[in-house]
């Protein structure tokens, strides 16, 4: 490889990526368009929510003149640090696939393309791929700051010149970290390590935000606590961090003061220096890392006796076909870091969920009988939604997770129905445990009545079957056997359809469940026994709830089975 290069060479290397995007847009079918529209709607709704939240917060802070300046500074600094951190983490992970694992690299590395040109083009791709989402979600935040600023346009100008260098620095430093890791560790190990670190990062972020109890901000009496809140939540601000330079620029812009030269120079010169350093490093170690990515390393010890023995003993009671599928699915799950690392996110979700109930005001238990039971009932809906969110990650992808090895099942004498029911029964037990833990524990924290606790437990038991049936059935109806990473499956058009279907199903169950709950609790409250009319309504509603759950299992399983059987691979 040579080291002299021109801008035209970099451009030429970027053309295929652009053309690929264009071609993808041209051949986008109805499903793809639906997915894009749905994604755009969700993004817009989320953006408006974020904008609304920040707008309200800034207006609120503006009422306390003595706190306005330091608080705004602190919030902006937190946002900048958050943007820099997320961009950096995202760049490290993106750089791995863009610089080392892309299929087209074998063609490019073997061609006479100068290494710096290749590196520069990959750096641009990494920057675009790793930052578009962060930048998209920062738009409503900065818009809220702009709208509440004395000089909105000057603030936006500060964002326009202060944010891009932050993105460049994060990308260049992130790809340098990846290059160094690649030069030292085998590619597979680096990938697993980064996925694990990514998951831990998200878990940490969730805990960090949640334990600070940001809901205190909505309490008008707690403005004096807010300063304390931000003091404790303060990011490790340092004048050496590029995010603090961006913050200085943004503060000046927001106050309609002249934009400071020093932070601007520091930002852009650091961005340029980090790109040069990244290119210089690539000259030295890129090929070593790329070679390591091509080598297949001997696998580690494939079986862990303390997991394998109990697993095989447990599976031993089943007939051979189900046992084989069960063992294969569990082993694949625990050996694939892209799959098991999601359990960390699940754990964080459960802890935060239960924590929310445990920190309810201590006088909550003195709330009215009606309110207490209403909350318990609404909690059922929340648990159903959490269960759907978990199922879209673990149950819906279970069919697609077969990947391109699905031909093995398809050419075997295993029927589609046996295959789907095996996936169903493999998914039910873990989700049942999760749903029961969520329901019993949250009802305990709520101090719900015995009736509501039992009703919730029975309902969530039924809902779990329905959600798993929907997940396996729709997963079979919308399989995606070609994927790079199993986590992509949940974000497919089928995944979104599943979420809509599962949420509708939970809402429908709750709607019919409301009748028995209302009649029973009213009778309890008034201290009178249930009359025959109420009994009939309760019986009818409960029958409908059971029927709904049977249909939620049977219909999607049947439809998905037919679609999968008719599918040609």
């Amino acid at each position, binding site marked *: 490889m040579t080291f002299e290069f021109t801008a035209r060479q970099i451009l030429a290397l970027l053309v295929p990526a652009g053309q690929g995007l264009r071609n993808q847009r041209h051949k986008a079918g109805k499903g793809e368009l639906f997915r894009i529209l749905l994604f755009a709607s969700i993004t817009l709704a989320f953006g408006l929510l974020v904008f609304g939240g920040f707008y309200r917060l800034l207006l609120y802070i503006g009422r306390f003149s003595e706190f306005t300046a330091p608080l705004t500074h602190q919030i902006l600094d937190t946002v900048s640090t958050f943007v820099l951190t997320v961009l950096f983490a995202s760049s490290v992970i993106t750089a791995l696939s863009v610089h080392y694992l892309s299929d087209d690299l074998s063609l490019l590395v073997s061609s006479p393309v100068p290494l710096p040109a290749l590196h520069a083009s990959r750096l641009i791709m990494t920057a675009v791929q790793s930052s578009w989402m962060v930048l998209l979600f920062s738009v409503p935040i900065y818009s809220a700051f702009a709208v509440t600023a004395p000089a909105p346009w000057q603030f936006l100008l500060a964002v326009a010149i202060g944010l891009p260098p932050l993105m460049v620095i994060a990308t260049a430093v992130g790809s340098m970290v990846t290059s160094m890791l690649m030069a030292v560790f085998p590619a*597979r190990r680096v990938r697993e390590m980064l996925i694990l670190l990514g998951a831990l990062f998200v878990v940490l972020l969730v805990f960090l935000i949640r334990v600070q109890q940001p809901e205190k901000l909505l309490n008008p009496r707690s403005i004096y606590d807010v300063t304390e809140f931000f003091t404790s939540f303060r990011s490790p601000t340092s004048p050496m961090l590029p995010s603090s330079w961006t913050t200085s620029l943004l503060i000046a812009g927001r106050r309609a003061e002249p934009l400071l030269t020093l932070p601007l120079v520091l930002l852009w010169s650091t961005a340029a220096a980090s790109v040069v350093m990244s290119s210089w490093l690539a000259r030295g170690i890129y090929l070593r890392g790329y070679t390591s990515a091509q080598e*297949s*390393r*001997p*696998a*580690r*010890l*494939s*079986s862990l006796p303390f997991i394998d023995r109990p697993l095989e003993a447990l599976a031993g009671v089943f007939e*051979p*076909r189900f*046992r*084989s*599928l069960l*063992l*294969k699915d569990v*082993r*694949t799950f625990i*050996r*694939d870091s892209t799959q098991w690392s999601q359990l960390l996110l699940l754990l964080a979700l459960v802890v935060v969920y239960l924590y929310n109930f445990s920190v309810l005001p201590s006088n909550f238990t003195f709330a009215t009988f009606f309110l207490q039971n209403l909350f318990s009932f609404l909690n059922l809906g929340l648990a159903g939604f959490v269960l759907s969110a978990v199922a879209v990650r673990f149950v819906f992808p279970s069919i697609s997770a077969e*990947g*391109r*090895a699905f*031909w*093995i*099942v*398809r*050419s*075997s*004498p*295993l*029927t589609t129905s046996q295959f789907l029911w095996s996936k169903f029964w493999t998914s039910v037990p873990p989700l049942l445990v999760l749903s029961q833990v969520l329901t019993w524990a949250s009802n305990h924290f709520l101090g719900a009545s015995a009736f509501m606790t039992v009703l919730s437990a029975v309902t969530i038991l039924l809902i779990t079957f329905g959600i798993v049936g929907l997940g396996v059935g729709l997963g079979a109806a919308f399989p995606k056997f070609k994927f790079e990473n199993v986590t992509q499956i949940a974000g497919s058009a089928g995944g979104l359809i599943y979420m809509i279907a599962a949420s509708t199903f939970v809402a429908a169950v709750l709607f019919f469940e409301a009748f028995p709950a209302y009649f029973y609790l009213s009778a309890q409250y008034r201290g009178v026994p249930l009359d025959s009319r109420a009994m009939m309504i309760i019986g009818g509603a409960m029958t409908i709830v059971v029927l709904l759950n049977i249909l939620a299992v049977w219909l999607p399983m049947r439809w998905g089975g037919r679609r999968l059987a*008719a599918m*040609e*691979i």
Partner: protein
Amino acid sequence: MIRLTGVDKRYGARDAVKGLSLHVPAGELFGFLGPNGAGKTTTIKMIAGLLKPTAGDIFLAGHNLQSEPVKAKAALGFIPDRPFLYEKLSATEFLRFVAGIYGFDGNGLEGRIDELLELVELIHVRSELIESFSHGMKQRLVMAAAFVHQPRVLVVDEPMVGLDPKGARLIKRVFREYCDQGNTVFVSTHTLEVAQALCDRIGIIVNGSLVACGTMDELQSRAETQQHDLEQIFLKLTGGEGFKEVQDSSD
């Protein structure tokens, strides 16, 4: 053992396979040849149950693949051209899995798995995860998996792709011995010397239709040539204008 009657496969307006009728009896090693895009892989995938024929019937060991798929597939072993496997399983676990989904269990299974791994020379990596295997090693493992449930019919798409000469020789020997035991092998290949040396009969498919089928002698007479070289016969039966070009250039 394998019978196809009037099998069609259409993709929109395009006929990938047209009225294909074929019978491969027990104990025969049948070679299926054709130029690129002739319909070989489509036919193989239909026999393996991965694609559904638009018309016609496929019988495996006397069972109709459409109406008795479980019985038909139980008699089938399939080796695809690209070995996509469950990468997070070890070689032994993978073979146990395949045996399990064919309903095989317990009695003598572990011994059979060891025997097969020995045969395909993967016994030393039996506990390694498949993700660390090379293409050729994966191809050998697929071959072992195809034999684990002792099928009566073996369907193979491009068996030599990714194999080293030793592996290729192993495959030839295994296929021949397997047929000599009264089983059937249906093999699609581009490697004409393999087909010529190995197959009892050869079928040639062009544009989705079977243009010739028979022993080497029968194909020779069909092609009206004295040359006993499958390449020449193949080019003559499939080539048309292409064959003339090859002839002219060699002249």
